[in-house]
C-alpha cells in the first residue's frame, strides 16, 4: 500500500507539472487565439498581427516531407516485414533505424546543410528542409508500418500464396488493405513530429521572417516552430502574450494530431477481427 502511494505520487509528480504548464499556456495564450491571429500576417516587426505565413509554411514543410518519407518508409517497412530474412543484415538495418531516430536533431540539420543545401544544390528551400525532416522522421513511419504489417496473421499470406498469387499480389491485395489504418496512425504521428521540429529546418529552409508566401518548393518559408523560437528570443519589445499564443497553437496542433492517432489506434483495436 505504501509503495502504491509512493509510485502513484511519483507518477503524479511527472504529470502534474506538465498539466500546470499546459494550463498556463492556455491561460496566457488563449486570449490571443482568434481567426484573425491564425489568418493574418505578422506586422510591426512581428510584435503584432497573426501567424498565417508560419502556419502555411509548416503545412508546406509537412506535406513535402510526407510525400518523400511515406512512400519510402512504407516500402522499407514492407521489405523488413515481408522480405527480409532474420540475419545480421536485417539487424544492421534495424540498428540504422534506431540510430536515425536517436541522432540529435541538430546533427540532422548539419546533414541537411551539407547534403541537400550545398551538395545537391537545393539551397535553403522548402525542398531541402522537407528532405531533412523526411530523413529524420523516417523511423516513425517505418516502425509504425512494420508493426501493423506484422499484426496481419501469417495465415492470410499463406492462404493467398496457395491460390497462386505472387508475393507482391499478396502484399497489395491482402496484407496492405488489412494494415492500412495502422499505417495511417504512423503517418499522423509523423505529421505531429514534423510540425514540431525546429533545429533541422533552421538552416535548411525556414526563415525568421519573410514578407511573401512561398510559391514553390525552391522558396524559403516561415514555420510555426521556428516562429515560436523567433518571437520568444529574437525580437525586442515583444508583447508578453504573443509568444504564448504561438506556443499554444503549436502545442494544440501537435497534441490534436497525436490524440487523433491514438483514437484511431484504439478504434482499430476494438474492431480487430482476428
Amino acid at each position, binding site marked *: 500500500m505504501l509503495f502504491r502511494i509512493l509510485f502513484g505520487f511519483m507518477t503524479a509528480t511527472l504529470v502534474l507539472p506538465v498539466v500546470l*504548464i499546459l494550463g498556463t499556456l492556455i491561460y496566457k495564450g488563449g486570449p490571443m487565439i482568434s481567426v484573425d491571429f491564425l489568418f493574418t500576417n505578422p506586422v510591426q516587426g512581428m510584435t503584432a498581427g497573426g501567424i498565417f505565413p508560419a502556419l502555411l509554411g509548416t503545412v508546406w514543410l509537412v506535406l513535402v516531407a510526407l510525400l518523400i518519407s511515406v512512400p519510402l518508409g512504407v516500402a522499407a517497412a514492407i*521489405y523488413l516485414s515481408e522480405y527480409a530474412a532474420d540475419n545480421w543484415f536485417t539487424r544492421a*538495418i534495424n540498428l540504422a533505424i534506431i540510430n536515425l531516430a536517436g541522432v540529435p536533431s541538430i*546533427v540532422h540539420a548539419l546533414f541537411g546543410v551539407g547534403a541537400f543545401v550545398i551538395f545537391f544544390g537545393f539551397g535553403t528551400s522548402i525542398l531541402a528542409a522537407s528532405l531533412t525532416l523526411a530523413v529524420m522522421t523516417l523511423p516513425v513511419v517505418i516502425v509504425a508500418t512494420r508493426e501493423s504489417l506484422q499484426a496481419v496473421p501469417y495465415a492470410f499470406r499463406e492462404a493467398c500464396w496457395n491460390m497462386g498469387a505472387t508475393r*507482391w499480389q499478396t502484399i497489395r491485395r491482402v496484407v496492405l488493405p488489412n494494415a492500412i489504418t495502422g499505417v495511417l496512425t504512423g503517418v499522423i504521428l509523423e505529421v505531429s513530429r514534423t*510540425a514540431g521540429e525546429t533545429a533541422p529546418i533552421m538552416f535548411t529552409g525556414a526563415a525568421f521572417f519573410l514578407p511573401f508566401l512561398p510559391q514553390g518548393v525552391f522558396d524559403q518559408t516561415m514555420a510555426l516552430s521556428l516562429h*515560436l523560437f523567433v518571437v520568444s528570443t529574437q525580437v525586442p519589445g515583444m508583447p508578453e502574450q504573443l509568444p504564448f499564443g504561438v506556443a499554444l497553437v503549436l502545442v494544440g496542433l501537435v*497534441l490534436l494530431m497525436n490524440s487523433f492517432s491514438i483514437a484511431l489506434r484504439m478504434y482499430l483495436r476494438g474492431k480487430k477481427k482476428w
Partner: protein
Amino acid sequence: MQSEPVEIIGASADFDRRNRDWYIDRAVQIIVFICGISAIVFIVGIFAFITMEGVGFLVGDFNFTEFFFSPNWRPTSEVQPTYGILALIAGTASVTGLAMLIAIPFSLGAAIFIAEFATGKTREILKIVVELLAAIPSVVWGFIGLSIMNPLIIEVFDVPVGLTVLNAGIILGLMAAPIMTSIAEDALKAVPDRYREAAEAMGATHWQVIFKVVLPASKNGLLGAVLLGVGRGFGETMAVLMATGHAINIPTSVFDSVRALTATIAAELGETAVGSTHYQALFTIGIVLFVITFIINLTADLIVRGIRKG
C-alpha cells in the same frame, strides 16, 4: 517461384500474364529492398556529409588537446581564435546529468506504477497521457523554460538569472521522462506473468514481487530505457538553447548559466561563412555528437537485445 514453362504448354496467354506478374514481383522486390536499406544509406550519408564539411578543420586547425581540453570556445576572436569544447561538454553533461537525476527515479517509479499497480481505465489513461507528453515539441519546452521556469526560479531561489543548469535540467528531465517511462513500462510488461504468479504462490508480498522478481528480470530493459533517455537529453537542441542561458562556462553550481554542444551549433551555424574554419569546427562538434549518440544507441540496443536472448 516461377512456374516451369513446360507445365503450361498450350496456354500461352496464361503464360504471358503469369510472366508479367513475375516480372512485377521481381521489380517490387528490388524497389522495396532499395527502400529497405535507405536507413543504412542515410546513417552512412549523415556521417559522410558532416565529415565532408568538417574535414577541413580536422586536417587543419584541429588540435586534439585544445579541442577536447580547453574551455575556451572563441571561434570569432580577431586575434587568436580558439576552438576548445570542454566548457560546452561540461554544459551538456551538467544539464543532462541533472535531468537524469530527476527523470530516472521518477520515470522508473511511474513505469512501476503504470505496469504493476494501475489497472483498467487508470492504466489506459496514464499511458495515453505519457504518450501525449512525449509529443510536446522541444521548442515549446524551451519556451516554457524561458517564459515560465525562468521567472519562477528567480523568484523562488532569489537569484539574478533563471536561465541556468537548474532550469534546463528540470525542462530536460520533464522532456525525457515520458519516453523513459514508456520504454521502462514496456520492459516491465515483458516480464512473463508466470514469474509474478510463482512468486505470489510462494507467499511473496506485492512489493517483494516487484523488487525481488520483476525488477531483476527486467533490468536490461530498464537500463536500455535509461540509456535512451540519456541519448535524448544529450542530443536535445532547442530546449537547452533557450533554457541554459547560453553562456560559455564550466558550472560550479546549478545556478550557473552554461552552454551545450548542440546549442552552440544551433546558435552559430547561421552566422558563419560556408567553408570557414568556424563553420568546419561546428561540423566537427557535429561529428562528436554523432559518434557519442551512435555509441549510446548501440549500447542500448545490445543491452535490450541481451534480454531477448537471455
